[in-house]
């Protein structure tokens, strides 16, 4: 049993999302250090605000400004911040009902330890120094004692309205979209069948697996016969020679590829295989490649796969010998 292969796999994407009118007003408001909620038909103020009433589904647009101070409704102490989370030092996750709001906002609370956090405690927004119109414009919450001298860097803890005040929701240069980058790091495991196949390739042997039910040899193997739905475990060496079953002429240079166009990309049925694999055809002018052409792999010193396939010089294969593999 060869070594089971794994490889790092990073998925990274910057999602660009457009905002509805309520979301736009809310996130632009955060940039301007103003917290807006939306009023439902039954008079509740939702913060953060949504575009549609969560109960009746009707469009809701009446905005109201609430205070940057509020009350913790539940909390959880995170001793080990993870990538992307708002603070680098241990912090509390909190749901905060801002003064004037009827619902709670999820964010983080900067506190010295879990002993300093409790449900019902008073907190206020600490604004991020650089604000762009995003939920992270709230840098975090911090404990707030209205009787203490207001010397904190939040500065304006008590400035907002005590009762929600109607707000027009219009600002100069409103934010209309957000870009939300995301990166996740995976470990890809190709599985036993592909690991065996890749190990054989390292020795310049091309292997497939025979289905115990229909006897077909699949290359490259994936551990199961896709026709019969059973495990295929018998190793079969195929090729190295094969037949071009069909092909195309590539005229557009792929970004970063060092291959000059035009070139031929082909389906190649290796001798002994019941499934054609893909490969580039070289060593012959592109306009002379044809169905039935007999080819063999060309390996390079550092490649784990054949670099390309070239003509063997044998007579072309008869159509009947490969028509089932098209």
């Amino acid at each position, binding site marked *: 049993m060869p070594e*089971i292969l794994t490889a790092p*796999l990073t*998925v990274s994407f910057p*999602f660009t*999302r457009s*905002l509805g009118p309520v*979301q736009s007003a809310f*996130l632009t408001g955060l940039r301007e250090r103003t917290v807006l909620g939306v009023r439902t038909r039954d008079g509740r103020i*939702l*913060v*953060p605000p*949504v575009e549609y009433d*969560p109960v009746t589904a009707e469009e809701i647009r009446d905005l109201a400004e609430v205070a940057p101070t509020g009350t913790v*409704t*539940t*909390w*959880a*102490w*995170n*001793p080990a911040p*993870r*990538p*992307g*989370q*708002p603070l680098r030092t241990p912090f509390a*996750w909190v*749901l905060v*009902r801002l003064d004037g709001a009827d*619902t*709670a*906002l*999820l*964010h*983080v609370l900067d506190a010295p330890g*879990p002993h300093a956090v409790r*449900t019902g405690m008073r907190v206020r927004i600490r604004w991020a120094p650089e604000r762009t119109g995003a*939920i992270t414009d709230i840098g975090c919450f911090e404990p707030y004692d209205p009787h203490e001298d207001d010397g904190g860097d939040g500065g304006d803890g008590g400035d907002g309205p005590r009762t929600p005040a109607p707000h027009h929701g219009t600002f100069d240069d409103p934010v209309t979209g957000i870009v*939300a980058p*995301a990166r*996740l*790091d*995976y*470990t*890809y*495991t*190709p*599985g*036993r*069948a*592909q*690991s065996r196949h890749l190990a054989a390739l390292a020795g310049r042997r091309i292997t497939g697996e025979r289905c115990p039910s229909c006897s077909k040899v699949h290359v490259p193997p*994936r*551990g*199961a*016969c*896709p026709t*019969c*739905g*059973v*495990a295929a475990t018998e190793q079969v060496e195929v090729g190295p020679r094969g037949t071009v079953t069909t092909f195309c002429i590539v005229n557009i240079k792929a970004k970063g590829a060092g291959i000059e166009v035009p070139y031929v990309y082909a389906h190649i049925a290796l001798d002994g295989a019941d499934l054609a694999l893909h490969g580039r055809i070289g060593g012959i002018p592109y306009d002379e490649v044809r169905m039935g052409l007999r080819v063999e792999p060309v390996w390079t010193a550092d490649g784990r796969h054949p670099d390309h396939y070239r003509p063997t010089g044998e007579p072309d294969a008869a159509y009947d010998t490969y028509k089932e593999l098209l």
Partner: protein
Amino acid sequence: MKPGGAGGARRTAPRDVAIVAFARSDHRGAAEGLSETEMLLPVLHAALEQAGLAPGEADFTCSGSSDYLAGRPFSFTQTLDGVGAWPPVAESHVEADGAWALFEAWVKILTGRADTALVYAHGKPSAGPLRDVLTRQLDPYYVAPLWPDSVSLAALQAQALIDAGHTDEEALAVLARRGGDDAPAGEYVVRPLRAGDCPAVTDGAAAVVLAAADTARRMCARPAWIRGIDHRIEAQALGLRDLTDSPSTRLAAERAGAFRAPVDTAELHAPFTSQEVVLRRALRLDDTVAVNPSGGAHAADPVMATGLIRLGEAAARIHRGASDRALAHATSGPCLQHNLVAVLEGETEGETKGEAR
């Protein structure tokens, strides 16, 4: 019967549909070196064999999984190698726990478009950072940019339950030890949740076979008849929800008929101990009910298969005569946002076809 065979015959009454076979993998942690297909194949074959079906023979195939766990687009298509998908089979996939694939297959059979269905689910959470991966299902505007991981969100819910007086850390420890003492179950992961309150996340797969009426009786000595299934979802914003309650579970249970008669067994999809507290209350389960005799989602959480396993385990208990009426629950989303409830029954001595309803 092949798809379309019953399509012309409009049925006026719902058909009886049962779970007739169930198999699951028993991995603990990573399924070292196995592709999804390789992990799934033995499970598929075990379920099909119980039902006496060959690969590709079921009228309908439906699977549940998530590309975000695998980190690859259309990752589920590879697993079709394991079901004998050529010549083409009638097939569907949900980007969700397999319990929702079972729901789709149940509807397919109810509407007369199939007599048998293979339902499977698989997940390899070991491939990526699960706690971070799951943040990508959250509100992308207000929540996901903060990367609140799955344990942190469950911990917010747990603290809300403690504040409301529904549980405390000692009671959670008893659940964590499944009836053991109330000593703290490991270190805090995100307080108030300790390591023992969190699920044993594992790679894994599960498969069930559904069949209608007489076909089910031929395939299984004691089919687990699906008397009702319903699923309901709550608002996306955590701050809009009462995290100490699960009104969506209760509503789904009502619609599935769970409260019409007592159940003797409940398989709950509660990865975190604190969520079992919420579900027991929402479903009004008392000490007469065997809750999670399989160990539940807390003992083994092959993400995306965990909910389907609850349905399968409840059905298997009926198959072997250990239960007459069981409730199975599956969940999706943060803090029990989306919930599915099914009621399964076995026919008792003396009951015959048609009288079971």
